[in-house]
């Protein structure tokens, strides 16, 4: 503090950047290049550069504590959970319609994905040896509690379905487990959107309406991709259709989501998250298209399409994950929307409408 002094003549020896810039001035400093990052894709959605909105902050520090989750564990879990759920649906359909060569790999994928995802969840705990505390309470206000119970029910069913499917023994039990897993599968696929959205992280919370649809689509696309990759072309028709359905659902929901989120959609388009989500879009769209065309005849094309769909789904989950973390790290995404909400509330005070 020896550098600057308040004298009778005013402030002396100020060091720019070292004093708390407060009031609206604090938000004026460009914290990162705002126009970079979107070289490509100069289509419809591109907006002209606008004067960055002004806001105050405490030395530009984040208002929120950012998520402590490891991307590999938790984004990986989001992807694997979706893959498991989608695969169980595919498995049940294939099982019921007499497509054993599609059902078997789908059941195995569901078991593998749910096992890996549970391992990722446990690995991410600060105290992994206390993982059983997850089932200590049943708490509807906690999506993670609900998810733990869901996995506790779904995991064994998926396991039973896979093992009976592979060994060919206990057919009745296997059929029941396959159906049971499929009943829980849609919830396994979509609850993870609530898990992210039920936080103060701006780009996750504001996504809560469309994110479950996007995750449902992503899970379906991944499972369809896996079916194409592992099932014979002759039996993989439903997998190709599931992939196309999932891809359309995911891409549509993500677009609608970004349009409605306003300012907090920015982190989905910038930096690492932006790159991942653009890659996801390209992989998912091309994978579904290739699968629906050449994938109907050629085993090799089906494998390429399936791989692209799986990668696209994973990239999408990592993109959403990183966008949320970025939105929590920048105070503008916390302060500006809240300021706007306050402004609207004072402009139209209506206490009984939310």
């Amino acid at each position: 503090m020896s550098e600057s002094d308040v004298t009778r003549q005013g402030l002396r020896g100020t060091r720019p950047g070292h004093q708390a810039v407060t009031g609206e001035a604090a938000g004026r400093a460009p914290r990162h290049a705002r126009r970079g990052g979107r070289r490509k894709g100069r289509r419809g959605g591109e907006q002209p550069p606008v004067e960055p909105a002004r806001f105050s902050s405490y030395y530009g520090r984040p208002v929120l504590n950012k998520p402590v989750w490891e991307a590999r564990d938790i984004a990986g879990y989001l992807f694997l959970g979706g893959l498991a759920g989608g695969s169980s649906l595919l498995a049940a359909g294939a099982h019921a319609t007499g497509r054993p060569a599609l059902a078997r790999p789908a059941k195995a994928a569901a078991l593998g994905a749910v096992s890996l995802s549970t391992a990722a969840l446990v690995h991410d705990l600060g105290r992994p040896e206390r993982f059983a505390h997850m089932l200590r309470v049943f708490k509807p206000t906690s999506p993670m509690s609900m998810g733990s119970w869901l996995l506790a029910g779904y995991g064994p069913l998926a396991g039973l379905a896979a093992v009976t499917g592979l060994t060919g023994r206990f057919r009745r039990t296997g059929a029941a487990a396959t159906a049971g897993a499929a009943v829980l599968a849609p919830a396994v696929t979509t609850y993870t959107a609530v898990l992210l959205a039920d936080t103060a992280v701006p780009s996750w919370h504001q996504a809560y309406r469309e994110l479950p649809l996007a995750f449902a689509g992503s899970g379906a696309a991944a499972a369809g991709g896996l079916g194409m990759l592992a099932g014979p072309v002759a039996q993989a028709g439903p997998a190709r259709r599931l992939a196309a359905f999932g891809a359309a659902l995911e891409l549509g929901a993500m677009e609608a989501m970004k349009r409605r989120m306003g300012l907090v959609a920015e982190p989905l388009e910038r930096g690492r998250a932006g790159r991942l989500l653009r890659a996801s879009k390209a992989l998912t769209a091309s994978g579904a298209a290739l699968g629906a065309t050449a994938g109907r005849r050629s085993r090799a094309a089906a494998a390429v399409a399936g791989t692209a769909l799986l990668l696209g789904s994973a990239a999408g989950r990592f993109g959403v994950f990183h966008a949320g973390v970025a939105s929590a790290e920048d105070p503008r995404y916390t302060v500006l929307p809240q300021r706007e909400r306050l402004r609207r509330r004072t402009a139209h005070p209506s206490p009984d409408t939310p």
Partner: protein
Amino acid sequence: MTDTAPSQAPGGAPPRMGFFTDTSVCIGCKACEVACKEWNAIPAGDAGLTGMSYDNTKGLGASAWRHVAFVEQRKPLGGQEPGVDVFDAAGRLGGPAADGLPPVSPDGRTELRWLMSSDVCKHCTEAGCLDVCPTGSLFRTEFGTVVVQEDICNGCGYCVPACPYGVIDQRPDDGRAWKCTLCYDRLGEGMEPACAKACPTESIQFGPLDELRERAAARVARLHAAGIPDARLYGESPDNGVGGDGAFFLLLDEPEVYGLPPDPVVPTRDLPAMWRHAGAAALALAAGAAACFLGRRP
């Protein structure tokens, strides 16, 4: 979403206790930070200098349960006469006293003002951290405060992004989540929290929430009357986004200037809608998957 502790439950339960932090008298001594660390045996943080005025704590976290913010502004504090010569003023002490507080700089000249504020967990009525905790480690005490049970917490980290104030955090080496307990152990013994005890200016006031709210309203009125229109309460209203903070503040500028969110809302307010949207998406997925098996055989 969370149950609210009644102010005065029958059967002798204690009233809801809280903090009123009056930042207008904070002198930035950090006695609260030190007392908190000492009493709660909190590990030292990293000791680097930040260049953020006198603030090297940076913010609340797993190992900082009180955080004194220092804000330097080119703006006169109400009641402060920038051109005053302290030696001259001291020399006239004992003479005929001027009535009340000196006026705000009449010519609108701007000078530096230094805002200091000791931040802490808000012990929200609707606490995001408590709502989302899957293990039941976070719970509401008989004093209406929100506390982590460290023998239960499995370090899932969900509470961290669920707090709209950026308070609770995970301690990397230990893996568990930590935050202010409002000195639950001291309260049980009828003692006030360590920070309030240590605060030399009574900037940190501890007591039954009802009483603190009355005291705070009177204090704001006095400051307004003294020509400090900037004074405002933050978090005291039970109508706010978290149903009222158990620890609230008197601030001299917008909340975001101190690093506080201007209009925080507990994320779980939207949870019923989130479950509905997820349910609809699940049904859409099930229907879509079923449709993939209809029609032609291949």
